[in-house]
């Protein structure tokens, strides 16, 4: 559709030039490219560049590796311990859950990046550029999602060699992983963007960690959710973290492991429904909140935050 549009525009332009070849125009676009496409393409390249930077720079590389390595060490020591009388190994149960938790942490990363880059003026620069905000958000989604997938692979590949009893390898388990991950990111990244827009400074971002840690604690990541009291189970099931963990377990655990779950079922339908609701709410709200936040960005605001941050250092 765009191609025909572009062609028509070109023809129109040629026709016009033919009648008045010397007339130069200051405002008529010479290049009939769609600005939205340009912004999305710029966002894509922005995301790819920042992703590459995060894997070619010492400090970032450490932060990519530190968490998975710590988790792998923990898993290694848990690998032979049995969970209750189920005959399942704790390490086997934990690995997919940790994958789910890591996927959910994209929310925190998104939120932190947004606040930090609002503070340092990256967002104001985007605002000063045509199509800049759209491209910025696109780029951020690619950076965070791409980094997350890489981090999952860093954990999963050695994990699969280390841990016995995983049902990985079948096409079905990869397919489940794929849809749970995509839906999970759709559910969590917009929430991260909303939180990142609402927090006034990078420092106050510390507060977001507390509810997230609480959500992780009750989400059945480290201990099956069925061993929690009923009311905690109810709260856990309202969070996307629980469903990401459950989805990951359904992808990687053998069929008999389902007995430790609520209702002895992987509940794929419910997983899709809950994550879907989170995604719908997040995707509906995020543009509104982001736009409101962007509207308020100004040089004076950035300067103020810079002063505040420098005073903290000094």
């Amino acid at each position, binding site marked *: 559709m765009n191609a025909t549009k572009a062609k028509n525009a070109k023809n129109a332009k040629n026709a016009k030039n033919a009648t008045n070849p010397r007339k*130069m*125009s*200051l*405002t*008529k*676009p*010479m*290049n*009939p*490219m*769609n*600005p939205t496409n*340009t*912004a999305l*393409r*710029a966002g894509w*390249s*922005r995301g790819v*560049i*920042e992703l590459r*930077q995060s894997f070619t*720079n010492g400090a970032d590389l450490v932060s990519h590796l530190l968490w998975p390595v710590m988790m792998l060490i923990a898993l290694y020591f848990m690998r032979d311990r049995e969970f209750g009388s189920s005959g399942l190994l704790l390490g086997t149960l934990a690995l997919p859950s940790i994958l789910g938790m890591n996927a959910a942490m994209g929310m925190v990363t998104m939120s932190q990046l947004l606040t930090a*880059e609002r503070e*340092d*003026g*990256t967002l*104001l*620069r985007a*605002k*000063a*550029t*045509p*199509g*800049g905000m759209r*491209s910025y958000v696109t780029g951020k989604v690619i950076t965070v999602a791409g980094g997350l997938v890489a981090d999952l692979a860093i954990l999963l590949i050695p994990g699969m060699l280390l841990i016995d009893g995983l049902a990985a390898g079948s096409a079905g388990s990869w397919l489940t992983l794929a849809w749970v991950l995509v839906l999970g990111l759709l559910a969590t990244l917009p929430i991260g963007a909303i939180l990142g827009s609402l927090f006034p400074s990078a420092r106050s971002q510390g507060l977001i960690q507390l509810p997230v840690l609480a959500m992780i604690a009750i989400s059945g990541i480290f201990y099956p959710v069925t061993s929690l009291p009923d009311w905690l189970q109810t709260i856990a099931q309202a969070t996307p973290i629980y469903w990401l963990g459950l989805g990951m377990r359904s992808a990687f655990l053998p069929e008999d492991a389902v007995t430790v779950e609520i209702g002895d079922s992987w509940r794929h339908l419910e997983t899709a429904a809950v994550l879907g609701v989170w995604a719908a709410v997040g995707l509906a709200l995020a543009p509104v909140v982001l736009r409101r936040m962007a509207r308020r*960005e*100004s*040089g*004076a605001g*950035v*300067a103020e935050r*810079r002063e505040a941050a420098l005073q903290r250092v000094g």
Partner: protein
Amino acid sequence: MNSEGMEAMTTNTGDHGGVALDVEGLRMRYGTTDVLREVTFRARHGEVVALLGPNGAGKTTTIEILEGFRMRSAGRVSVLGTDPAHADEAWRARVGVVLQSWRDHGKWRVRELLAHFGSYYVPYATEAVRRPWDTDELLAAVGLSDHAGDKVRTLSGGQRRRLDVAIGLVGRPELLFLDEPTAGLDPRARHEFHGLVRRLAAEHRTTILLTTHDLAEADKLADRIMILSGGRIVADGTADELARRTAGADEVRWTCDGRRFRHTTAESTAFVRELFREHGEAIGELEVRRASLEDTYMTLVHEHESGSGGAGEAFGAGEGQAAVSSR
């Protein structure tokens, strides 16, 4: 010569008779405080205008309203024929904003970042204005060719500011906003920066609005200076016009028969002529100090800060300050 060229260009496109900025009755109110009151001015295409004023005069607020970063309380604002409060991305592509960067994009390399920001402007190229500016050409223009491969966070303050300018220019804007562009630069970096701005105005006929609290900078760069004080524009003209504005600002000193004299007058030449006719050879050590932009500035700012209507009284204080700083 500059305005002639612009005239030809603007008639060609019929662009609002050559007015790039048109502000009328602009008001900004935070709570019960008026930060800007009835600010009215215009700038023609190709003009370099400085908004001069003490800290807190409302310079940044004014420029941010024009940039479309801030909503105004009242008044009419037209930037390149569009109200910046409701402007679209196509308008944004014609306007350059030089931001004061701090630590954003620190991991990006200079050339990579500039090429990236350039890519946003591709759909806004016109037959007359090729967009974006070629990355290597632009790097050379701001003197950053040697640092093209450096990471942004390794640049010095002056180099970063030049990169800020390059990013503001990469879309070949018709209008460029510079808010306190040389704040925090050392004298050499400031000098280089002034050269860059003058070249932009001369070679590319970019309309430039800059804010500064540095008189010398406004004098050096701007075709026209507007003095903002207490949220109002209290003077508007070329540096010479402003300097002439304060009546009696020229100071004449001389000795006559070994005694020292001092007199302030608006007509210093006539006064000196009269002096010689009356005293002839008896006059020695004659010194005429022309009214300076600084005198006018101090006078006006003092007048508006003290809120006094008595120009004579205000002028006295202004003169005293100017005399101190001229030594």
